[in-house]
């Protein structure tokens, strides 16, 4: 079973990264916890997951360059840059609980997240790219996005290849819209540009109108998902953003207009020569947009 072998490699890799970072007694605890999780019942899994930070600490995992390459070889798109030691251990314990029964694993994962405290939910959802039969975990991932807790939302949405691979267009669009709504960031969403679509663009333009009607700003990142799918009637909105006194918003509009295939879009962009020049010279990018915000 390919799935099982892959799971084995992932466990070995996570265990090796952790082994280098843990004191002997912490390593002993983790070995015992893994054995118990692999052979015990669901209570053993949730108990070990709960105890992980007490036993292992909460330092940053901080993989070095070689290990980072190991990670990408293990799983395309894996980004562990924000992971802590206890989070990696909790994901490892979850993997240990897999018994080559995809349906049972989905049930166990669901229960572990549902009964988890704030940090357990974050850790387990960050592990979504690594679990077997990922498609079966979509309902819990979507539930994670429905949260009112920003860090839980971001554990699913940010620095993870999982959403772009697994979510339907409707689910994807909801995630992006909600990210803007709860004032999270779009840049850390993996695959954001590839999964832009006309429905999402239309929804975001409506959202911008709603915010403007309430006398509020929108995040400049909103325009990133609008550009390639902007309609003629959206161009006045982009022109308005291009003239914004907020530098990031004006730059975002310039980037969006440059990506818009409508001939009229180029004309709008030319109405602001300095911004047009910034785009032409590749001096501004979507990912660096907000770091230049005052």
């Amino acid at each position: 079973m390919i799935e099982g072998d892959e799971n084995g490699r992932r466990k070995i890799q996570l265990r090796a990264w952790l082994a280098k970072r843990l004191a002997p007694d912490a390593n002993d605890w983790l070995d015992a916890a893994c054995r118990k999780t692999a052979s015990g019942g669901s209570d053993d899994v949730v108990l070990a997951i709960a105890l992980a930070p007490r036993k292992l600490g909460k330092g940053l995992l901080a993989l070095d360059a070689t290990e980072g390459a190991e990670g990408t070889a293990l799983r395309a798109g894996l980004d562990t840059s924000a992971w802590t030691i206890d989070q990696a251990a909790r994901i490892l314990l979850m993997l240990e609980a897999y018994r080559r029964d995809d349906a049972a694993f989905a049930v166990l994962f669901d229960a572990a997240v549902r009964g988890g405290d704030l940090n357990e939910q974050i850790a387990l959802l960050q592990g979504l790219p690594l679990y077997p039969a990922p498609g079966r975990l979509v309902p819990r991932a979507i539930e994670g996005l429905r949260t009112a807790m920003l860090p839980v939302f971001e554990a699913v949405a940010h620095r993870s290849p999982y959403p772009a691979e697994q979510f339907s267009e409707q689910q994807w669009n909801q995630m992006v819209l909600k990210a803007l709504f709860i004032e999270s960031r779009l840049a850390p969403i993996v695959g954001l540009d590839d999964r832009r679509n006309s429905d999402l663009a239309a929804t975001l333009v409506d959202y911008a109108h709603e915010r403007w009607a309430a006398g509020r700003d929108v995040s400049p990142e909103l325009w990133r998902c609008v550009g390639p799918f902007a309609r003629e009637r959206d161009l006045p909105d982009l022109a308005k953003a291009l003239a914004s006194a907020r530098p990031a918003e004006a730059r975002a509009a310039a980037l969006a207009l440059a990506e818009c295939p409508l001939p009229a879009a180029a004309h709008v962009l030319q109405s602001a020569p300095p911004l047009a020049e910034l785009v032409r010279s590749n001096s501004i990018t979507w990912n660096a947009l907000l770091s230049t915000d005052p």
Partner: protein
Amino acid sequence: MPFIDPHAHMISRTTSCYEAMAAAGVVAVIEPAFWIGQPRTNAGSYADYLSHILGFERFRASQFGVRHYCCIGLNSKEANNEPLAEAVMEILPRFAAKEGVVAIGEIGYDEQTALEDKYFRLQLDLAREMDLPVMIHTPHRDKKRGASRSMDVILEHKVDPGRVVIDHVNEETITEVKDRGFWAAFSIYPHSKMTAERMVSLVKTFGPERLIVDSACDWGISDPLSVPKTAALMLKQGIDAEAVRLVTYANALEVYGKSGQMSEADWAGATVDQRERYEGNTILRGGQTPVVGRD
């Protein structure tokens, strides 16, 4: 002056309470599991309650720069529903093992029934096995005998009294609690239990050692500012600042810190940033300006 409110049912309080507490200097709260005003009818709703206080409530507190800890337990009122109690006892260990759980509690007696006694004892054993302190709820009715019996049973189960807080203590029970080596906590209520004025007299009479002030604020008439208000009154009436610090901050930290889950480093240097990832902004409703950099 920093304060700890070591007994606060924040799940029943509003964001205004958190704002007022943070502004008054409350840096940390402990939320003991209790009943929620009406009995739960199944273990599922109990499990959801426990994960709520460990999850969303902890997150909510973080929005206001208040550190949030929990005590996990089956309360005495609901211990009288045997099928519920049995099912809850099954799930307690996994919740008690979670981060930021500083004690088993609040447990003890309500009407002092046989079932209350059974589950009280089982949970004392759980606390010993899990190496956690204990928070004891003393009954509102027949308090003196109930408190006395609680202490007998705790000692019978070989739990160290230096790791046990007897809560809702008053003038009638303080002497026995202190003499037997337990910590004595006082819930300062606007109309019942204990007032700030009486608390001042108790500290003057007994000294600050092993005395703890809390608000026990919940869904009833209660005051989430009881701890800072009582501290202000103590200072005004001539109790020295170090004694005030002990009973409104350091004593609670010492006993619940024995869990290994609570230390001054958790809030030292912490500032509120409602824009930050972990201290995220989802408590804010549209149009509100995030609070940044307030201590």
